[in-house]
C-alpha cells in the first residue's frame, strides 16, 4: 500500500476506536432522582424560565436536606429558545442520553404538546409542564404520562368570563400569538363567554406570528375597528412587546383590555414603571395576595435568594418539586409507573394552601385571581388591584368534560 493508504487506514482506526469508546454504554451511577428541565432561557420568555428554575432550585434545596428515598433530587436544564424543534431534540436527548426519570418545564404550549406526544407517551416517561398552559395538554391531548402544575387556559377563560360577562362588553376583538397557547386562550374564553353571555359578539380575530417584533400596525388596525373589549391571547414571546405597545399607543385608555397573566409579577417587573395601567388580567398566584403567613414566608425566602419577589413560574415550579418528592416517597422506589399512581390525587402543602393533582386529568387545581394593573410606588412596578378571587372548584372544567374531549 502507498503511504497515503497507511495514513488513511490509521485515521480510520483511530476514528473507529473513538467511536467505540463513545458508543459503549457508560457505567450506571448511584441513584438520585434525576429531573430533566426543558425550558426557555433566552429571549423574552426567559423571564418565566428563570423564575421557574429559581423556584425549583429553592424547593429542591429544602427537599434535599431530608432527601428522598435515601438519595437527592438532581436536575439538568436545557434551553429550548422557545422553539419546538429545539425543545423536542433536547427532551429526546434528556431521555435517551441523560436517562432522566422525568421531564418538566416548557413554557411553550406547542412544545408541551409535542413533548407530551413524541416523548412522554412514546417513551412512557412522566412529563410535568409547569408553564405550558394550553388546556389541550391535559384535556383532549391528555394521557397517563402528562401532568400540568400550571393553571390552564380553561381555568383562565372560565374565571375571566365569570367576571367580564357581568360587564357591559358586547363586541370583543381577539388578537394574539399564532400558536397553540394563543388559540387555546381564545377558544376557552370565547366558549365560556358565550355560555354566560349569549349575545356577546366576537367581531374580529388577529393572529400575528410568534415573536412578531412590530405590533403597531396590528394595534392601529384594531383601534380602528372600535371594539368594546380586546382579548389579547399572547404568550411568553410577545407578552412584553404587547404590554409595551399598549403603553406606547395608549390603547388601554380608550378600549378595555384583558390579557391572561398580565397581572403576574414576573411579567410586570421588567417593565417597571413603564408598564401600562388599567389592563385586566387573571393569574393563579400573586406574591402579595392573599396575605397568608405561608405565602409571606415563601416570598421572604425567595427574595433573600433571588433579590426579587417570585412570580407564578416560581410558585408552580416550587409546587412541582414538592409533588415530585412526595410522590416518589409514596411510591417507595424510583419507578415511573408507581410514581404516576402515587401522584394521582396527591395533595401537597404550598405557600397558598393545599394544592391537589387531580387524578382524572392530571391537572393541578388552583384558584384564579382577577385584577387590574396599577403602578405601585412601593415595588417600582405594576401590581394588581381590585382583586376578585375564584375558587378552584369554580374554574376547573368538569372531569366528564375532559373524558368526553379525550375521545
Amino acid at each position, binding site marked *: 500500500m502507498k503511504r497515503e493508504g497507511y495514513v488513511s487506514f490509521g485515521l480510520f482506526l483511530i476514528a473507529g476506536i473513538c467511536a467505540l469508546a463513545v458508543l459503549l454504554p457508560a457505567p450506571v451511577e448511584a441513584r438520585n432522582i434525576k429531573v430533566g428541565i426543558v425550558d426557555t432561557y433566552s429571549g423574552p420568555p426567559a423571564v418565566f424560565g428563570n423564575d421557574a428554575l429559581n423556584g425549583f432550585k429553592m424547593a429542591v434545596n429544602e427537599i434535599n436536606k431530608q432527601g428522598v428515598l435515601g438519595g437527592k433530587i438532581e436536575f439538568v436544564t436545557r434551553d429550548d429558545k422557545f422553539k419546538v424543534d429545539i425543545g*423536542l431534540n433536547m427532551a429526546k436527548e434528556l431521555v435517551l442520553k441523560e436517562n432522566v426519570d422525568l421531564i418538566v418545564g416548557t413554557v411553550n404550549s406547542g412544545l408541551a404538546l409535542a413533548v407530551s406526544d413524541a416523548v412522554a407517551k412514546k417513551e412512557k416517561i412522566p412529563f410535568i409542564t409547569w408553564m405550558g398552559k394550553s388546556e389541550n395538554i391535559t384535556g383532549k391531548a391528555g394521557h397517563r404520562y402528562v401532568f400540568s402544575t400550571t393553571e390552564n387556559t380553561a381555568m383562565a377563560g372560565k374565571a375571566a368570563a365569570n367576571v367580564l360577562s357581568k360587564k357591559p362588553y358586547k363586541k370583543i376583538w381577539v388578537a394574539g400569538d399564532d*400558536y397553540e397557547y394563543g388559540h387555546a386562550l381564545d377558544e376557552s374564553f370565547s366558549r365560556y363567554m358565550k355560555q354566560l353571555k349569549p349575545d356577546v359578539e366576537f367581531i374580529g380575530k388577529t393572529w400575528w406570528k410568534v415573536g412578531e417584533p412590530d405590533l403597531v400596525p396590528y394595534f392601529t388596525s384594531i383601534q380602528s375597528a372600535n371594539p368594546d373589549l380586546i382579548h389579547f391571547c399572547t404568550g411568553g414571546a410577545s407578552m412584553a412587546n404587547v404590554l409595551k405597545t399598549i403603553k406606547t399607543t395608549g390603547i388601554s385608555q380608550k378600549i378595555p383590555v384583558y390579557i391572561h397573566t398580565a397581572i403576574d409579577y414576573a411579567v410586570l417587573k421588567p417593565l417597571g414603571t413603564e408598564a401600562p395601567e388599567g389592563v385586566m388580567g387573571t393569574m393563579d398566584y400573586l406574591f402579595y395576595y392573599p396575605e397568608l403567613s405561608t405565602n409571606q414566608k415563601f416570598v421572604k425566602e425567595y427574595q433573600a435568594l433571588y433579590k426579587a419577589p417570585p412570580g407564578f413560574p416560581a410558585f408552580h415550579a416550587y409546587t412541582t418539586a414538592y409533588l415530585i418528592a412526595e410522590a416518589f416517597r409514596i411510591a417507595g422506589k424510583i419507578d415511573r409507573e408507581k410514581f404516576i399512581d402515587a401522584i394521582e390525587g396527591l395533595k401537597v402543602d404550598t405557600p397558598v394552601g393545599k394544592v391537589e393533582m387531580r387524578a382524572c386529568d392530571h391537572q393541578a387545581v388552583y384558584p384564579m385571581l382577577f385584577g387590574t394593573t396599577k403602578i405601585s410606588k412601593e415595588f417600582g412596578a405594576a401590581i394588581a388591584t381590585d382583586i376578585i378571587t375564584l375558587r378552584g372548584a369554580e374554574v376547573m372544567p368538569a372531569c366528564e368534560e375532559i373524558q368526553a374531549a379525550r375521545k
Partner: protein
Amino acid sequence: MIKDILRTPSFLWTAAVLLALLLVPFFAGRFYVYILAVVFVTGLLAMSLNLLVGHGGAYQFHHCVFYGVGAYTAGLILAKTSLPAWLGLCAGPLAAALTGLVIGAFCVRLNKLYFGMLQISLGSLIWIVALRWYDLTNGDDGIHGIPMPELLSGSVNAYYFLLIIVSACLALMYLILKSPFGATLRAVRDNPQRCEAVGIDVRRHQLLAIVIGTFFAGVAGVLFVVLEGSVFPDMLFWVLSLEIFIMCLLGGWFTFFGPMLGAAIMVALRTFVGSYTDYWTLILGVVLILLIFFLPEGIMGVNFRSWQRRRERRRSADDVR
C-alpha cells in the same frame, strides 16, 4: 462501469463502513442509534446540495426549502389524510422535485448571485406560507405525532430504513455523477461559455441537475419525518440552508463523501458540544472562519487535492520516461 467501480479501493472502504453501520444497533445505546440516523438524514441533505453546488456550480442558496417541502408533504398526507402511508412517503420527494423545477425555472435564467437571491426570495415565500397557514400546517407549533407504519416505527427500525434508503440514494448519486451527465455538469460548472460554444444546453442541464438535487433533498425530508414523526417550519428557514453549506464546506466540496462527513461532524458537534455549552454557535462560527481561511476544500478535500497532485506527478513522471 459498475465492474470498474467494484474493483476500486474506495468501494472496499465504503463496504466496510456500511457493514460497521449495519452492526451499530447491536452495540450502541438508543441515543447513539438515533444520532446516527440524524446524521444519515442530514448527510443526505448535504450530499444533495453538493450535487448542485460542488459538482454543478449553482448558487443554491435556499436548498432546505425542498427538504421542508418534502417533509411537509409527507407529514401532511400521513397526519391529516387517510391515504396509504407509502403514498405520502413517495409524494414527498416528488413534491420537492416539482417545487425545485418551478423555482429552478425561475432561477436558471439568471447568473450566480441573482440566482441565489431569487431562490432565497421564492423559498422564503414558501417558508412564510408554511409558518402562517396555521389551519393547515399548525404554524409555529409544527405537526407532531405523525403516524408511521409499524415497519418503520421504533428507533432501530427507523435506523435501518434510513440506512437502506440513504445508501441507495448515495449509490444513485454516485452513478449519476460518474455518468456522462455528471461529466457535462462538471464542465458546465467549470466553464459554461465553452459548453455553450460546443452546443450543450447549459440551462437545461442546470435545471435537470436542480430537479435531481431537490428530489434527493425531498427524500431527506421524508426520512426526517420517518425518524422524528414531526415537521417544523424551521426546516424551511434560511439559516438551515446556510448550515448545510457549512457541512459541504467542512467535508469537502469536490469530493463525493465530503458532505456526509461534514454533516456527521456538525451533528456530533451540535449534540455533544451543545450539551456542555450554550455558546455552541460561537464555536461553529469560529470553525467556519478557520475553514474559510485555511481549509476551503474541507477535510476530505485536503486528502483529495494531495492525492490528485501526487497522481499528476506520477503521470508526468511516466510521460517523461
